[in-house]
């Protein structure tokens, strides 16, 4: 019962909550907020139950439900999760709950519509993470777009219309390409097997010639790349982030960007492994540009929010790099960094939102000396900043380290270029922090700012706990994602028919070129054996 029902509950509970809101009178703000918080809270607890009953170390999909939906087209209501989806789901419910909590005071305009959008969005996001049927996936993918459009367009800042339209156009453009590619796969599979199906797992076995695979891969990749966003498709992001309300930014950065990288992991890599390998250098190249470019541009931003937005471009570049390093360390690091980015950037956006509510400005130059009047706020800000620059014992370090380790293995040039991002991150984050928090108070308006309220602390504390928990004991995450990642890598490697690529991948040999006759040590053998075991386990 629990096994097969919980994903349905998780997906549609927020929607039910959203419609429950419609039964309440518009003016009845307190009840509306209570319902929204209760729904998001129960949703979060449900996801914890999911986490607790998840079977660690198993590759197959869990909590599967597979019912025919539109039989003549082979569309099934097919849901299921592996470790990758599990972690993203838990992160999504936590972030949404905190985002809704943080809106308690800050949102006063059409409250019912706002919470309706938030809950509706939650259903869309969970749906994407649990869908195992491409059609269902696509439906949820599109469902997410609508509430986000309203969140930016109605509750956003001054240039919200421009930002929301830009956001929608970019995303729609990607979605349409994806739709075409999706239908192409559907028919190609029918041609090969005589079966109409959108089933993701079945479609993994589709064997397209390389030429066709290339096109379809690129169509999907473009759709996902816009979401991530990969340079140079990122320009919608700063506008959307700056204009979106705090909760919108949190969800946008925390979850929606992950849809892109999730798409790569769930669809692009396993479905088009040859094309993935073929285009990996391209993706890595763009990721590296994103890392450095995002950092440089972040450095000169004047608005704290757009600084954080550009830092996202840089951090998501790290995630892409980790994925396309196509090895265990890189990919697990990437998945962890997806979570980390959600937690840390979520915290940063919440923090910026808190100061914005007090001062109605986000310009760095309007602040300075905040530490004096808001010490608790400053402490939270410092922790989030340190996590963002990847200080050891915070979450950011573990993810970045693994990605760099993996990237360095794939090609030392990748690792070296990406590692400069570590320096740049320290520059732009600490410089911003210095100008906002340290120094003397230079603006009169800042002299009487109130420190954080109990509610605001309650919103930030869980994120701080997560920052240190993942930083100190990341194995809880690694253990859960390991089979899923191993499975993806296994599919990619099996399909690999470009041996020169992987010789560099596995390649200690390449590294040891000038060590021709030295005995290979035991440690190395062991480590390779371990990797091998984890892969065979998943077959």
């Amino acid at each position: 019962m629990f096994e097969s029902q919980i994903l349905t509950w998780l997906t549609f509970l927020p929607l039910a909550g959203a419609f429950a809101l419609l039964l309440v009178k518009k003016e009845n703000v307190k009840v509306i907020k209570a319902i929204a918080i209760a729904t998001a809270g129960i949703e979060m607890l449900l996801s914890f139950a999911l986490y607790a009953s998840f079977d660690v170390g198993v590759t197959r999909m869990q909590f599967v439900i597979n019912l025919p939906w539109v039989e003549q087209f082979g569309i099934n209501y097919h849901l299921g999760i592996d470790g990758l989806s599990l972690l993203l789901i838990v992160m999504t419910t936590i972030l949404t709950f905190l985002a809704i909590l943080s809106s308690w005071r800050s949102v006063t305009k059409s409250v019912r519509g706002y919470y309706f959008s938030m809950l509706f969005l939650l259903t869309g996001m969970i749906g994407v993470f649990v869908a195992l049927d491409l059609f269902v996936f696509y439906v949820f993918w599109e469902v997410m777009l609508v509430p986000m459009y309203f969140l930016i367009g109605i509750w956003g800042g001054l240039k919200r219309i421009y930002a929301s339209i830009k956001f929608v156009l970019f995303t729609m453009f990607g979605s349409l390409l994806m739709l075409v590619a999706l239908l192409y796969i559907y028919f190609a599979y029918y041609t090969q097997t005589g079966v109409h199906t959108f089933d993701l797992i079945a479609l993994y076995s589709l064997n397209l010639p390389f030429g066709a695979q290339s096109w379809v891969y690129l169509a999907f990749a473009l759709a996902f790349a816009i979401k991530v966003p990969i340079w140079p498709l990122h320009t919608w992001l700063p506008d959307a982030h700056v204009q979106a309300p705090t909760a919108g930014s949190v969800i946008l950065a925390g979850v929606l960007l992950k849809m892109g990288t999730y798409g790569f992991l769930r669809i692009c890599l396993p479905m088009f492994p040859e094309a993935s390998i073929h285009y990996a250098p391209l993706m890595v190249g763009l990721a590296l540009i994103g890392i450095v470019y995002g950092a440089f541009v972040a450095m000169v931003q004047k608005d704290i929010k757009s600084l954080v937005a550009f830092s996202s471009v840089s951090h998501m570049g790290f995630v892409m790099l980790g994925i396309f390093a196509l090895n265990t360390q890189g990919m697990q690091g990437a998945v962890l960094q997806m979570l980390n980015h959600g937690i840390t950037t979520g915290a940063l956006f919440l923090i910026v939102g808190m100061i914005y509510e007090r001062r109605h400005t986000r310009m760095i130059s309007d602040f300075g000396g905040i530490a004096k009047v808001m010490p608790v706020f400053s402490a939270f800000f410092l922790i989030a900043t340190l996590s963002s620059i990847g200080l050891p014992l915070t979450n950011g370090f573990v993810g970045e380290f693994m990605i760099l380790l993996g990237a360095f293995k794939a090609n030392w040039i990748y690792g070296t270029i990406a590692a400069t991002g570590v320096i740049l991150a320290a520059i732009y984050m600490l410089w911003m922090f210095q100008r906002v928090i340290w120094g003397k108070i230079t603006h009169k308006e800042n002299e009487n700012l109130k420190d954080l309220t109990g509610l605001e602390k309650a919103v930030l504390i869980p994120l701080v706990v997560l920052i240190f928990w993942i930083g100190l004991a990341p194995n809880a995450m690694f253990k859960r994602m390991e089979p899923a990642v191993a499975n993806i890598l296994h599919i990619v490697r099996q399909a690999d028919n470009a041996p020169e690529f992987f010789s560099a991948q596995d390649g200690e040999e390449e590294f040891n070129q000038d060590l021709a006759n030295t005995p290979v040590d035991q440690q190395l053998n062991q480590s390779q054996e371990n990797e091998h075991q984890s892969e065979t386990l998943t077959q």
Partner: protein
Amino acid sequence: MQTVLPLIALLPLAGFIINILLVGKLSKKVAAIIGCGTVFVAFLLAIKVFFDLSALPADSRVISDTLYNWMTVGGFSVDFTFLLDPLSAIMILVVTGVGFLIHIYSIGYMAYDEGFGRFFAYLNLFMFSMLVLVLGSNFLMMFVGWEGVGLCSYLLIGFWFDRDSATEAGKKAFVVNRIGDFGFLLGMFIIYWNIGSLDFQTISALAPTTFVIGGTVITTATLLLFLGATGKSAQIPLFVWLPDAMEGPTPVSALIHAATMVTAGVYMLARTSTLFVMAPTTLMIVAIIGAATALMAATIGLFQNDIKRVLAYSTVSQLGYMFMACGVAAFGAGIFHLMTHAFFKALLFMGAGSVIHGMSDEQDMRKMGGLKKYMPITFMTMLIATLAISGLPGISGFFSKDEILWQTFSSDYGHPALWFVGMLTALLTTFYMFRLIFLTFFGKERMDEKTKAHLHESPKSMTTPLIVLAILSVIGGWIGIPKLFFGATNYFEHWLEPVFASSHRVMQTVAQQAEVPHDTSIEWGLMAITTILSLGAFGLAVRFYLKKPESVARPRESFSGVHRLIYNKYFVDEIYHKLVIRPLHLFSIFLWKIVDVLIIDGLINGGAFLVGGISRVVRLAQSGRLTSYVTVFTVGVALVAGTMVLLSYGFDYPLFGANN
């Protein structure tokens, strides 16, 4: 956790957590008790484990203790493991011992500061990080401590966060250190992907069979690690942050920017000595950088007027000395000097702090003078430290400095030129240190009346640590008295032998000739030269700053160009600003305003504009004239047919690499 080893690091962490969570709620007394108490217990435990360790037979002096597995990804696995061996044992004694004294000193120094509790919290966090750095059994744990001390340094330099100069210095320290950390990370990756482990003991054991001596891989890896060391230990080219770091409270300068953190680079080289001896090119670069830094910083120290800045450059210079030792593969000598330096430099800084305290926060030596009668204890202890750093025969600095100078001359990796630079630096050190003493404690009283009225010796909590360190500065070197004297064993070297056994074996395979017997006459000779010339430098300092203080201006005029260059610290900061920071800033603005806004967004918005334009044109086509429709239809059919023909040949354009 089977031993008390992890507690040594974890106790200060507990102190940090309590003090930071209850900041403002605890009385100063309780905060101080927590801050100092945890470190004191850690010090006692350090003594205990030191004796535990020495009770073991020499070649098995290793105690390790694993807390838990930190992360495992594929074949990569790292534990939180603490490792005690003769090297880390010395380090934890120095760190907790000197650290404890500085904690005590801070009670007096920070007594009237509002941020008292926060200060002790940060100090404790620093102790934790530093202890993790030295006790970590693998590169990653060392890196945790490495970045952790960097964070504490950032927080403590910028402790008085309403001073812009302080926060600027803090940020500079962090960023410059990050540049070093970049090297550390990459070096670590190369080591890992070759050896398959980050564990120091495994690395020492496997490196000799994994790497080719002098090969590209090991040379690159060690150079990258050394880049990390230059960041943390303020060597050329990354030394620029340390003088600015003096913006922090003086106990911080004593603890972090003199005695402990800045020596982390030297410790790292000693810890990974096996790797470094396999890369002679790297060693040579280490020695040259160390010598160059030692000399350059000493010259800058000659003309500084801020008492703390003189000491800061002196620290940079002395660190250069330690690297010189490492560069000639005399790691033991480097660590020996690290220890004695920790004693006398911490003492000098705390003495300077005492002076600043008495002088109502004045740091300019031109406004001091004649303080010895007001602050006798500070004067005496600082004088002892000055004698120690100048290498007065018989006290600590003499032995460690002599050891390094001898090694630079006699080691297989050494060179007389290195010895000469080292000797020259020693003379300059004597000169600028006595200049400091004379300007501060002797001569006319140049302070204003108000300051003069306030002049007082510092409280007991401050002078007691000074006295303890003064004693250590005298006798601390006796455990490393070279064989030369009395023919006794050099206990220090002997104690460290097992740590460097592996690198020693590598060196033996490198060395072509058999070990030359120790030529004592040369060692005596060199020692005599340095000592006599140092006396000369002392004489010069007496002449310029004690006898005729008014003649100070004279040499300045005669070397005005050189003086200007040195006085402005060779304009390194300005050069970095012009050549690195400014261009990068402009480049960032270019990326943002031109590439992002103008080009990328321009193209996209242009695209939108284009769609609008096309639809306007298309509207014209809706003319209702049948002929034009037919024309369009025909062209359309032709296009579609053509496309289908093309398609039937497939998409195998060479562009995508024909796979089938």
